[in-house]
């Protein structure tokens, strides 16, 4: 298992993402004798070993199935429980693209939070790059440290630190270079303006450095922009990222001709009823539908056979896409959209001051 390279077959000890449904992806470490229990069946870890990544696996009791997925930062993010600390893919992918994060980049990240973005950074910078991530909150730090190590993110170094008060300087591990020397900075902190003055000591002195501050409230943006300006950062620009997900759906074509045919059918049944109930008509209403009157047979009520009409399933439950009816392809947005994640404030620092 690795976030740096795909493997093909599942082995004992692997981190596998069990895809149960779109909203339920469960990370498991394949362990001999263990069992995955879900609402949709039970799955023995033993039987996962030797299966291919991506394979569909049937439930133990003959019902249900899951897919056994290889971890990627994106799937990993989806598998996390919903917490606001998560930087989702539309934000993280844009930040990385805009700041030019590539193989070999040296990243400073504070705070680590759920470590979801850390995974994405670690994947992109590869084994040549280095990620220095800082977390203030001790339980979160411990959890993240364990996770980063367990996931084999050997290019990542996590520090327990309140960077706002104590800055970013650390003793760098041997294979991480002589100093932090970051070229990309990502701050997801309640008060980034207190951390910004500490940055000059840990960022590159020979190349342009990019920063992104991630803040939910607009007042935080204002303070951040001021701090960036005062500390010599330029090209300051704040943006929002809106990510949306759409589902493919089908909507029934309800032709006006079928409406008319159905109304005639109703009318003719009603007249029939009236005729049947009464023997003599006192007051007559002229009608002439004989040419176009449809056959009011039972089958025409549920089927659009081409001869009768489409009753649009009035009173009948029709499966979306039922081939007996005509449909249009439509898209439907997710029921609840993430209308705001945070404001992203970008800026750049040049290595030399000019007069």
């Amino acid at each position, binding site marked *: 298992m690795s976030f*740096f*390279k*795909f493997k*093909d077959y599942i082995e004992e000890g692997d981190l596998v993402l069990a*895809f149960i449904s*779109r909203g339920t992806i469960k990370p498991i470490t394949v362990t001999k004798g263990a069992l995955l229990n879900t609402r949709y069946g039970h799955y023995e870890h033993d039987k996962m070993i030797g299966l291919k*990544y*991506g*394979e*569909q696996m*049937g439930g133990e009791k003959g019902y249900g*199935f899951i*897919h056994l*997925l*290889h971890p*990627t*930062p*994106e*799937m990993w993010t989806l598998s996390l429980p919903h917490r606001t600390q998560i930087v989702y*893919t539309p934000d993280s*992918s*844009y930040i990385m*693209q*805009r700041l*030019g994060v*590539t*193989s*070999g980049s040296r990243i400073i990240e504070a705070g680590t939070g759920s470590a979801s973005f850390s995974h994405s950074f670690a*994947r*992109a910078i*590869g084994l*040549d790059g280095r990620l220095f991530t800082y977390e203030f909150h001790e339980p979160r730090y411990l959890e993240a440290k364990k996770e980063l190590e367990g996931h084999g993110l050997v290019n990542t170094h996590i520090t327990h630190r309140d960077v706002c008060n104590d800055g970013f300087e650390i003793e760098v591990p041997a294979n991480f270079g002589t100093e932090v020397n970051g070229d990309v900075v990502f701050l997801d902190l309640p008060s980034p303006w207190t951390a910004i003055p500490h940055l000059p000591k840990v960022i590159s002195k*020979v*190349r*342009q450095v990019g920063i992104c501050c991630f803040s939910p409230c607009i007042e935080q*943006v204002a303070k951040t*922009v*001021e701090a960036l*300006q005062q500390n010599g950062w*330029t*090209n300051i*620009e*704040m*943006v*929002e*990222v809106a*990510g*949306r*997900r*759409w589902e*493919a759906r089908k909507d029934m074509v309800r032709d006006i001709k079928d409406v008319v045919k159905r109304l005639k059918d109703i009318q003719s049944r009603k007249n029939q009823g009236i005729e049947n109930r009464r023997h003599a008509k006192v007051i007559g209403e002229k009608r002439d539908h004989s040419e176009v009157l449809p056959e009011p047979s039972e089958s025409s009520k549920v089927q659009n056979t081409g001869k009768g009409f489409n009753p649009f399933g009035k009173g009948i439950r029709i499966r979306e*896409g039922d081939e007996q009816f005509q449909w249009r*392809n*439509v*898209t439907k947005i997710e029921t609840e959209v993430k209308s705001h994640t945070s404001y992203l*404030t970008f800026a750049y620092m*040049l*290595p030399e001051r*000019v*007069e």
Partner: protein
Amino acid sequence: MVKSKTIITANQHALIRLPSEGLKIVELRSGGTISLGKFGSFDVDAILGYAFGQSFEILDRSNVKPVKSLAPGLEDGEGAEEVAEAEPETEGELSKADLTSFFSTNAENNQQIIDIGSKVQSLTNQEIDELKKSGASSNIGQQIIEKIIAGHGGFDKKTIFSQQKYLRRKQQKFLRRFTVEYIGSSQLLQYYIEKDLPRVLDLSEETLGLILNYGNVRPGGKYLLVDETGGVILYAMMERMNGEGTIVLAHENEHPNHIALRYSDYPEELINQMVKPINWLQFLEPENEKIDLEILSQEEIDALKPTKQVQYEKRLKRSQDINSVIDMVQAGNFDGFISVSTLHLPSLLPEVLPAIGGSRPIVLYSQFKELLLETQHSLSNDKRVLAPSIFETRVRPYQTIIGRLHPMMTMRGFGGYVLWGTRVLPQENITA
């Protein structure tokens, strides 16, 4: 790869960003001079050795001096304070310095230019020309703007909005500043967005980022790619892969079009090593398209005329290339499929899926949501793609001046859509 990604270096390409929001790609030939048209020209040697991202102002005789940003008035730190204190008040109270700050932090995105200047302006073109010629000062542009404000009869009667527009327009016209940037994939895409949006199929920077992340692009991967942008996607992938791994580039012509790579400064050997082109005929009818070349012994080669020898070597190379990429496709197990094209995906996808490895991402871009919708429906009975969904990402830039913070009033509407799913391996005997 010997090119520098950090320092402005001779014999590389670079992106020049101009105050008018114009972008230019130039090759930095040592000893040469680069013309920026009406903005003037500069000597290449004068900018070498600075970090990419550095801004310069053109002095007289093609000299430049480094400046902090494209906008004037920030070098002395003065602008920042004014910006911080500026507040939207009733009309007419906005100061010039304040307006200047407005420009300084908005060099990139404001597209709301309205033509209000020429009608009311009291400076003649001749006066402006004289101002331009008047001195060697680096402040020529700034001076001109000040003169124009002073000479502009109705300036203080305008709304804040139109004052800002007016000044911005003037500034863009006269300031002689530029920034030199490294051509990363974002810069390359921005360049094409400005020059030729249809070529990049309306793709936005944020959507490019989404494609690369959903595509799990990283060093060492082996990807199958369809790229109709002329190589922008290819370049972005190569950038992230940093020389390690393989991209099989499926294309529909005799030769793949990756003309955008000419700005990449990647050596040809690297491109040849990483990028393996294959056309769709070769992809879909591999057995017919493999080249069964009669291999000659050294003796037989020696016996050929020199021109025939060269021809043979060429054919041999070509057959080896084609056969090896066909073998690669037949071996399959690609680490992902990325398509940025206008091809009909519902007909294409079933042909491609068998080549993609289990649990690997499928990432399909289209300008139009409707085409991905059709594609998603075509997958509804294909159990080989798990949880396909259509994603949209849109970045909304702000006017980032404290005291006047708001989203930009207008922005371009393009961006495109991405269908992301995961290739899985269904089992026949499983029922839900």
